[in-house]
């Protein structure tokens, strides 16, 4: 399981004096899909921001392919092949759908993903390519955010709150598209509130509670009861 693809070792993160993560350790293997679940305020987004460099850490706390990346800037980490679909989508409102996608591809990593591949995955985006990104519905915006992250041809894709604030039918569409995205051998970390979906789509699952890992296990074998204990801390 630990092939040194992504290793997080005793990660502690702070917002000023407030400590949000306590000694979080976690591994993601090459081609592995890992789900991160946990209640609001458990530290899931903090964990994503720490991995992608939006929060800075000690260098050795995050290692990617053997390289200590904890101290790098977000843009440097992005060029190494880590790409995030951020919570709340964070599209660029004054750019069109297509320009948002092009921005995602500007680091110039080679791979299967380009404008055409993204449009094949989400045909609706092709129809709306010239529209302002904020004129789209929430679900379509999430598709742009996913497409934008894919355009970087990442080796590790991080989904932060993949289904937050979306209608159930849109969540279904996005989950149906997931195998087409991560089926190609890409590793992924998926942050999700919906435990059933998180377990179905992942190989392994981590549960965070109040900034600590409260459960780690294989998604196939972990029991419902263990999860709800870890989730609520009862």
């Amino acid at each position, binding site marked *: 399981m630990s092939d040194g693809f992504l290793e997080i070792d005793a990660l502690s993160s702070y917002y000023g004096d407030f400590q949000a993560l306590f000694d979080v350790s976690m591994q993601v293997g090459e081609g592995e899909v890992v789900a991160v679940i946990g209640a609001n305020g458990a530290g899931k987004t903090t964990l994503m921001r720490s991995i992608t460099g939006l929060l800075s850490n000690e260098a050795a706390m995050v290692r990617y392919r053997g390289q200590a990346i904890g101290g790098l800037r977000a843009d440097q980490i992005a*060029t190494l092949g880590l790409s995030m679909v951020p919570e709340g989508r964070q599209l*660029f409102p004054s750019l069109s759908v297509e320009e948002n996608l092009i921005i995602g591809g500007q680091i110039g990593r080679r791979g299967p993903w380009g404008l055409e591949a993204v449009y094949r995955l989400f045909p609706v985006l092709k129809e709306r390519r010239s529209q302002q990104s904020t004129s789209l519905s929430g679900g379509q915006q999430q598709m742009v955010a996913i497409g934008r992250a894919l355009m970087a041809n990442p080796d590790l894709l991080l989904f932060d709150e993949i289904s937050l604030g979306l209608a159930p039918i849109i969540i279904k569409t996005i989950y149906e598209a997931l195998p087409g995205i991560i089926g190609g051998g890409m590793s992924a970390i998926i942050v999700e509130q919906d435990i059933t979906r998180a377990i179905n789509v992942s190989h392994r699952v981590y549960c965070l509670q109040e900034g600590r890992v409260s459960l780690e296990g294989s998604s196939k074998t972990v029991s419902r009861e263990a999860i709800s204990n870890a989730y609520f801390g009862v």
Partner: protein
Amino acid sequence: MSDTQQYAIDRFSPASRIAAVAALVLIIALACGPWWAGRADMRLLSELFLYMALASLWNLLAGYAGLVSVGQQAFVGFGGYCLFAMTMFFGIPPLMAIPVAGVAGALISIPVAFLIFRLRGAYFAIGTWVIAEVFRLSAAQISALGGGSGTSLPVTIVKSIASSRALREAASYWMALAILVVVLAIVCLLLRSRRGLALTAIRDNELASQSLGIDIWRAKFFVYVLTGGLTAAVGALIFLQKLRISPDAAFSVNDWTAFVIFIVVIGGIGTIEGPIVGTIIFFLLRETLADLGALYLMILGLVAIVIMLRAPKGIWGFVRQKTDLDLFALSRRVVTRKKHQSSHANEDNKGEPHEPQTT
């Protein structure tokens, strides 16, 4: 989607196509200025061109790179002093001295950037002003250039531009027009490039663009050095026309920053057209109201307040919101190439549910 249509990406809309042709005609007409305009008109137009150039540069800096500097007079004055020093001490011809002043401005902006890029927001703005004051006080120490009271450009240098007065005035008019065209072309090309897309993304959302691999520091640094250099070149030309320089005039926060910010804000920040519209309005106001003295400045302030309240994106932002006009062909748009049938192509996806958006 039906296969009866093909899409292509085109930056040009009909409006921007017409605007491009009109701009070309206008530039040619303006270039013929010495044959149809009087001496006073030419002087006024030169000044307008130079303000338009300064406003376009400040707009690039503040409207696109998010660097709200109130110290661009540092570069205007630096360029002016460079021109005087180079022509008077080293005998460089004035026409040559303008691009050299631009390069010098870009070079000096590098250490300045390293210094002030540590500051954010309001602190950055104040920092740029402090730097400009340091420039002003330093210029006042150069006794060879008249110290605090300044100096005039020697007659021999003035005459080296052209022998007759009419020709000199024409040359200075053409230079102002040329530098405006150069500045607008550079701004336009930059914003159309991939780097320009990245700049717009940074302006929209810094965190998101950073996590997509955009080096924000480098993008801003590039814009700062570019505008620093071009602002210095414009400054050199401004003081070549004035023929006299002093620290207070060269590093005036009123003339080179306050008026410029006024122009960009009323015209529409973050659009290429904004500074152009703003400059024209500013000059119209100035030419019609300047006789009113202090009242003129109060009216300027009132105009700025009303526009900021009624149309926060400036006059051009207001026009664009109403008409979707885009004269400079910056944004990509999709054009439909019709094959056999047309129309109902976009109907298919209209029925799709639009769930409420949350962010």
